[in-house]
């Protein structure tokens, strides 16, 4: 069959990050020692994540953390699904050495909670985002779009938000192992 040629435009920029100033991407901060440092756990409304946040705080304190701040996303963004408040994050970054942001348990909450973690990383805070398996892809896409494709992302089983406190406890251990190399004690 005879063929023809034509030159066409692609409707998408060459890479998703093409519009982003690549100079804004930052090196991955090192993992801080647990003992003596402050940490933050960023929450966003999922009930299971509040339980997990309590487990994370207890484990970090048991390991010698000076303090663990549990921060609700409204305080970060002036609204549950709003861009981050730079002033608030700047202040938080001066107080903590590490942070865990979650829970990615839907599409939009995954993209925003992941962004919180990325924003803290840009401020030199070692941070990790926690997402359930169903929404892993969107977390990865958001990290890549912000030129932080190697950002630590901890993946939990689907429906983790609905587990009991006893079932969530080992997941807290796994999150801390992946985020801060904190070995489980149990």
């Amino acid at each position, binding site marked *: 069959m*005879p063929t023809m040629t034509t*030159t*066409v435009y*692609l*409707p998408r920029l060459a890479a998703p990050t093409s519009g982003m100033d690549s100079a804004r991407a930052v090196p991955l901060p090192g993992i801080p020692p647990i003992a003596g440092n402050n940490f933050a756990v960023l929450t966003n409304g999922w009930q299971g994540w509040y339980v997990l946040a309590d487990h994370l705080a207890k484990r970090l304190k048991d390991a010698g953390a000076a303090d663990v701040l549990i921060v609700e996303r409204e305080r970060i963004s002036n609204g549950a699904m709003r861009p981050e408040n730079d002033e608030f994050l700047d202040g938080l970054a001066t107080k903590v050495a590490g942070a865990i942001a979650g829970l990615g348990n839907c599409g939009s909450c995954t*993209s925003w909670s992941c962004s919180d973690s990325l924003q803290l990383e840009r401020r030199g805070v070692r941070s990790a985002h926690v997402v359930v398996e169903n929404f892993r892809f969107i977390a990865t*896409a*958001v990290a890549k779009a912000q030129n932080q494709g190697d950002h630590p992302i901890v993946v939990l089983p689907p429906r983790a938000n609905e587990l009991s406190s006893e079932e969530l406890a080992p997941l807290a251990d796994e999150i801390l192992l992946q985020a801060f190399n904190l070995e489980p004690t149990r």
Partner: protein
Amino acid sequence: VTALETRELEFADELALQDWYRTSGFTDGLPVVVPTVERVEGFIRDSGFDRDRRVGLVEPGLGLATVESVAVNALMAGCRPQHLGVVLGALESMIKSRFNLRGVQTTTNPVAPLTIVNGPIRRDLCIDSGGHALGGGPYSNGVIGRGIRLALRNIGGVDVEVSQATLASAARYTFCLAEAEEESPWEPLHVSLGFEPDENVVTTVGVESVVNVVAHMWSDPEDMIHQFVDTMRSVGANVLCGQGTLVWVLNPAHARFLAGAGHTRQSLQQKLFEATKFTPDDWPFAGTSGNRKVGEIEDVHGWSPDDGKIRITESATDIYVLIAGRNHPIHSTYMTAMPYSESTCARVWEPRR
């Protein structure tokens, strides 16, 4: 990098070109106008816009929307150059932070961004505000809405994997209407939002779903409003988890019926706002939704309850009322909101000639 790539393609026929765009993930599944270099150059030239003029970054992929990149998508959607200013204005509106485009583009909610057009350009472009304003009608509504969607999809980097919609919505193909300003007993929507009557304005809303309301048997306007309130208090509405903008599209006959009873747009908004407040006891799923208990919704919203009741929106002005549709006193339309997405506006772009 702001310039789009071009590619030389060898193809057997037009269907092969269509297949290439579809399998490359650049379409909504429907055929597109293939954006050859010649077509794009002509489109931009005829639009009168500077091709490098920037709109902004489109979430979540943070692709850069420029006249050029938007024009390619608009052309693919079937737009003509004269439609481009509306598409550009809608994108400018949707990238404002209040709209929460990151959430809109990645949510499990079926949200589709609605574009409402006000001002003289409605007539110039024949954007339907009548019997097929929301689908199946004249040309402009379809191609403008689709141009916006393709730009959001392609520039924002939202393919079928990035979008986390559970089922999505047919409104994601195209979702654009004009207000029937001439049929309205009240000032046009954009005037109520602070613009001048002769300005061309797009108002964009993250709409979760479109609900038809049959309201043809009422002799008392207050009964009609009661029916509207019951529609808005649907316990499945996602807006009850977070603030958003609700939309009533009243057909001209319904609007005149209510106006004849003395209602202004503002009084209707206030009436709907007050009557839709609810208590935790009204909510059948308290504490069992896997999310917040309804008693904590005031915390989610960041609003104080009024008299122990929780508001459906932050204020009465977040319930939009506009006029469109055929002049039959039967059906009006209610649009529930994507939570955490608030309506935004922008002027239709004008070329710098």
